[in-house]
């Protein structure tokens, strides 16, 4: 199994980092996906992609206004970009000495560290650890579209857990979200609205009576 490399670190802080990637790497990552940054001595930082943005440069601005741009020019501009595609990632945990923690990583990664997409197995491992502690980091990020982000995450991870023989994960996660957001009616309803759209009707069935 080859690890899917999605880019290198542009800048980082304790609570998150930004990854720059080439356009040909843009196929794999998606909104809400889990990524990891392996560092020395088995130390590894986990993150969740919450934004993918494509910045313009001077040439793009000129091309946008130009008439009848040749298709090859457009392709060339897309592939050989001057500025990278940027992905904003929320730090949601780390692994040290083989143990996964949902606390914020003790120190960030350094520039140009390679970022990989988490494999199914790692997603299962990370999301099943403890009691959904990493939801804290997501819910704290008030400026993010929390509902959409969580819906995307629960949809992706739920499917993987299902295939892994743990069909109750999605409802356990939903229940935890309800507990965490009980006192914030507006946020809870927006999260549940998004989850309702994202999850197939039978996804929650099995865990419902658990």
């Amino acid at each position, binding site marked *: 199994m080859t690890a899917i490399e999605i880019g290198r670190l542009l800048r980082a802080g304790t609570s998150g980092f930004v990854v720059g990637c080439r356009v040909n790497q843009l196929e794999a990552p998606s909104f809400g996906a889990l990524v990891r940054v392996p560092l020395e001595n088995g130390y590894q930082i986990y993150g969740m992609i919450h934004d993918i943005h494509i910045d313009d440069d001077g040439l793009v601005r000129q091309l946008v206004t130009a008439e009848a741009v040749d298709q090859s020019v457009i392709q060339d501009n897309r592939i050989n970009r001057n500025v990278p595609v940027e992905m904003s990632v929320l730090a949601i945990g780390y692994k040290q000495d083989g143990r996964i923690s949902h606390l914020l990583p003790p120190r960030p990664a350094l520039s140009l560290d390679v970022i990989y997409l988490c494999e199914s197995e790692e997603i299962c491992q990370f999301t099943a650890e403890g009691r959904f502690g990493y939801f804290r980091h997501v819910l704290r990020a008030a400026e993010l579209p929390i509902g959409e982000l969580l819906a995307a995450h629960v949809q992706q991870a739920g499917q993987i857990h299902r295939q892994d023989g743990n069909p109750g994960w999605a*409802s356990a996660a939903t*229940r935890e979200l*309800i507990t965490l957001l*009980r006192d914030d009616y507006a946020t809870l309803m927006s999260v*549940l*609205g998004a989850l*309702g759209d994202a*999850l197939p009707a039978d996804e*929650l069935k099995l865990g419902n009576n658990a």
Partner: protein
Amino acid sequence: MTNNLASIGYIVGGGLKESLKVRLTVPAQEVQEGGFVVIESDEWLFYGLVTDLQLGATDPRFADEQSEARLPEQLAGLLHGQTLYTNLEVLPALMLEPGPALDDPAYANWIAEIDAELRPKPRPLPVKTVPPHHARVRLAGPGDIAQIFGKQEEKKNFVIGYTREQGHPVCLDLKQFVQRSSGVFGATGTGKSFLTRIVLAGLIQHDQTSVLVFDMHNEYGFDDISSDDNKRVIGLKTKYASRLRVVGLGKGALIRGQAPDFNLELAESDLQPEDIEMLTRELNLKETTPTTLEALVSTFGRQNWFTAFREMRNGAIIEDEDGKKRPAPDSVAAWASSSGVHQLAAEGLHSKLGRVFRLPYLVENPASDTIGEIIQALEAGQHIVLSFGKHESDLDYLLVTNLLTRRIRQAWEKRTNDFRSKGEREPRPLVIVLEEAHKLLNREMAAQTTFSTIAREMRKYYVTLLIVDQRPSQIYDEVMSQLGTRISGWLGDDDDIRAVLSGLAGREALRGMLARLQSKEEVLLLGWGVPMPLPVRSRRYGEDFWKELQGEKQGKRDQKHILKELGYD
């Protein structure tokens, strides 16, 4: 005593004054008001009664909005599971030290200490503390009920009914039951007389007590036809032909077309002035009555005053030799003037006593001392049902019960004193069953009849009352407060409910329960004669009941049977 019965919730708050609050973790339908629950903490087991169920929400908006319309069904289910809940209110009644678990090594030690009397045997105590937060709550199992109400196997315990939800048998300790006066209450048509039959059958079967029933409506002795479904109702005489005697009031009386074992006639000499004073309201007597009666007694003596007064002619006049009219020597007026009694008062009393003079069962010289026979039978361990036959008026009831009870009281007081001072045989406990008790025990009457004395003091003399009534509010408070065991069916009237609950803890909580009992076959056991209040589905009186009682006595009720009784056949 760990028990793996499923938990239904956990304690979230409350206290001794208000009820304990329990967060329910199972669907609300699985618990009902009046359910008997056990709260487990490390040190104590608490026994309580569900008095209310309340719907709650972590935020009122979750309850207000019908989110099932907005969200997929499963998601709404999850949301409601987390935000909407039911709270129980539990009235804690008793607590018990369970000791170490059976498989705990400390258990053997603990039992040994109890056996050696180094440590008191654990028994249910009134609640004095509260369980901690989050203590586990579960529905009581048959073992818990037996722990509190007694085991069915013991002879003194009589199954009075079954818990409403799970049908576990609930026992009444008959030995304790007869030590204090008790009452059976319920609005008309709630099955009071069936319940009384069941209790009486239990007492007779238990055979430690004699029973005297004042059967005003001729229901208890011979077989009867139920007024509800026209089915035959078995009388006690049918089942206890040799141990129970039916006494008819008046010579030649027939009860339900059958001849009673013997007939009761009262001697006029037994009638005392107090008996007449007691009838003041019934006969509408004047306030001069006591003076007149006193004069009669002083003229003729306590034995003969009544006969003498009856034989006087009211208003008889003779003419003397001068042609002047004056009262005849055997007239009331003549006696009045000779005894210094107001003539009109005496004549008034005489005419008002006419109803008493004409009573056919009140005779000058009865053929035999039937009251004495009744007392003898009761002392010998037999049971008496005194049927009033066609004498159903309040006058009959007041007069006969009072007269008979006074004699009984004298007899039992004498026996008890002989037992205490001379070491004679211990008197046999006696239970007097009073139907329509409010007629004898209302506020005005209570002071004058023997019954209030019995209710208050006679327990020392082995005589107690079993009061059967539909208007407990009419019964004198002082008598009500003496009732140890109260078995109450549905009551609608607020005053009646208040009367039944008088002097009990947790009245407010029990009040609603009493008003919401199913109108038939559900009764609330309460009073300090029972360990804790509990609503039960009473036993059904019929062939099955008798089979269980007299036949295979230890026969366990199988599940099919219980289901059938619950109506799931």
